[in-house]
């Protein structure tokens, strides 16, 4: 619109430097990064493809029976994975049941009640639990946890609830209980770290509003902060659940590896991950191997679904940030 001639317009200076040209290196850079980034989705596809292909003979041979029958007999070539599916779910559920109060306690204590100077150290120590290798948990479980359970935990439990089916039978050590307790300690840091970040993401105004109405500190936490972060907290718990479902070594070393469904937590059980770890190298026939691949495929699909659900829930609270990926 506004053209304002200022001064007599003269010819511009001679061009003394290039203006034109293409910067190919930028495209190369973008291309290289894209190629690297594409590897992850391709990997996921390859995972599904490989596992699916390898599991196909078993899927075709047994169909749904694979999921609901309990006979696992490599000699007769009959495979039903129900006990390990049950064991996986039961141990993860129990682990979550034990870990959630602890983890929420840690998260609430650290965000709301603790003196400032203990926050970083305690958070660090709890996160350090995640740094302990699974196999070390297994070792500790065999030589420390199981004797401890046998002496101090099982007798009183039995005295109180021995009449229920959940505590029947002889306690030999390796059992659903031992596996679940070790799993609970292992997933505790994940749930605690994510819950803490979720609680930190709750706007201070929520807390202040409750406190301003005369609520006690605890009431503010329980009626304002926790409900606000509910979706994220559920996400944290599900994330912990996902970890527990796929955990292998410690569980293999502690759960007893018995292919049987028992309601008693004192009895040995089996999990999908443990079955693969124990039997994969022994699988001599194609169908046996295929059955184990089907177990792996189920485990993979279930954990992917559980993790996806957890992520979506956490993203809803702390949009876009990689909450929890920093947990050690």
């Amino acid at each position, binding site marked *: 619109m506004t053209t304002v001639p200022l001064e007599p317009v003269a010819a511009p200076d001679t061009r003394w430097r290039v203006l034109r040209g293409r910067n190919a290196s*930028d495209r*190369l850079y*973008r291309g290289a*990064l*894209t190629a*690297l*980034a*594409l590897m992850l989705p391709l*990997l996921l596809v390859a*995972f599904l493809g*490989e*596992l699916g292909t*390898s599991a196909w003979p078993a899927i075709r041979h047994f169909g749904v029976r694979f999921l609901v029958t309990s006979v696992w007999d490599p000699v007769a070539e009959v495979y039903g994975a129900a006990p390990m599916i049950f064991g996986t779910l039961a141990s993860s559920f129990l682990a979550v049941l034990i870990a959630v*109060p602890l983890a*929420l*306690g*840690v998260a*609430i*204590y*650290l965000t*709301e009640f*603790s003196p400032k100077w203990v926050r970083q150290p305690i958070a660090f*120590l*709890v996160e350090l*639990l*995640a*740094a302990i*290798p699974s*196999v*070390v*948990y297994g*070792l500790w479980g*065999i*030589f*420390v946890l199981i004797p401890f359970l046998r002496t101090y935990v099982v007798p009183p439990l039995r005295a109180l609830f021995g009449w229920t089916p959940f505590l029947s039978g002889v306690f030999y050590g390796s059992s659903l209980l031992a596996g679940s307790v070790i799993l609970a*300690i292992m997933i505790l840091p994940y749930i605690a770290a994510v819950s803490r970040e979720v609680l930190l993401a709750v706007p201070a105004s929520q807390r202040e509003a409750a406190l301003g109405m005369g609520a*006690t500190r*605890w*009431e503010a936490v329980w009626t304002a902060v926790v409900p606000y972060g509910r979706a994220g907290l559920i996400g944290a718990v599900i*994330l912990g659940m*996902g*970890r527990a479902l*796929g955990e292998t070594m410690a569980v293999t*070393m502690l759960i007893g590896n018995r292919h049987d469904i028992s309601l008693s937590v004192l009895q040995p059980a089996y999990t999908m*991950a443990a079955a*693969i*770890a124990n039997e*994969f*190298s022994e699988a001599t026939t194609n169908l046996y191997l295929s059955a184990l*691949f089907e177990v*792996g495929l189920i*485990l*993979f699909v279930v*954990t*992917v679904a*559980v993790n*996806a659900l957890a*992520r979506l829930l956490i993203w809803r609270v702390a949009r876009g940030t990689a909450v929890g*990926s*920093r947990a050690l």
Partner: protein
Amino acid sequence: MNARRLRRRLVNGTMTALVGALSFVAVLALVLILGHLVAKGASSLDWNFFTKNPVPTGETGGGVAHAIVGSGIIVGLAALIGLPIGIGTGLYLAEYGSGRLGWVVRFVADVLNGTPSIVVGIFVWTWLVRPMGHFSAFAGSVALAILMVPMIARTTEELVRLVPHSLREAALALGYPRWRTSLRIVARTALAGILTGCLVAVARIAGETAPLLFTALGNVNFNTHIGEPMEALSLQIFQYATGPFDEWHRLAWASALVLMGLVLVLAILARWVLRSRHGAAR
């Protein structure tokens, strides 16, 4: 009314004490585990332990030199494969990740982050071990690298995003090409944080066992050839802990102490790197 107030204050006090106690229990678990490791493992750490290979069962003495070296090789190779891919993916997500592909990659990374490591193990078995016809340390490294990539990608992305936008603009305004801005200015500024993420990832995979069961397999002999089966500390602990001999149990505790020490050093180093440098992070 007064009774009600009293009750509310009582609840407040009780719950404060309770969450404090729960935190104490969580920390106690760590202290107990580390304490037992030291108590049961430290006495076995001697010169032989670090320099000798295992002796036949029944004899005493011998060490785990082969497993320490094996772990070093397998984890080192995994880092060599996993770090470039992970960092590259993280840079992609930070630089170009606003579109649909970025969303997909981010989501897949988060999902793979939770994949059971045993599943990664059997996947690599079908991919590398079965076609090659034998177990190898290389396959083990690939399995561990697959576990590293999503972790590193997400931390790298997060830390690169923390670099102020103004720095990127300043570089571009100076005639920096985008790639150079990304690497020399942005990634360089976030380097301490990225390094921390890498150390944390290495610390985590260093203790992994399940992905190595059907890839690196383990080996009673000293071996440095990555095309052959190789022992790792974690595999060694599994074997010794579940075996029947007291001598094995003793070595298992000592190996666990060494492995834990290694992981702790990496984790603490990671914290230290983050604190001692200016720039990004917490």
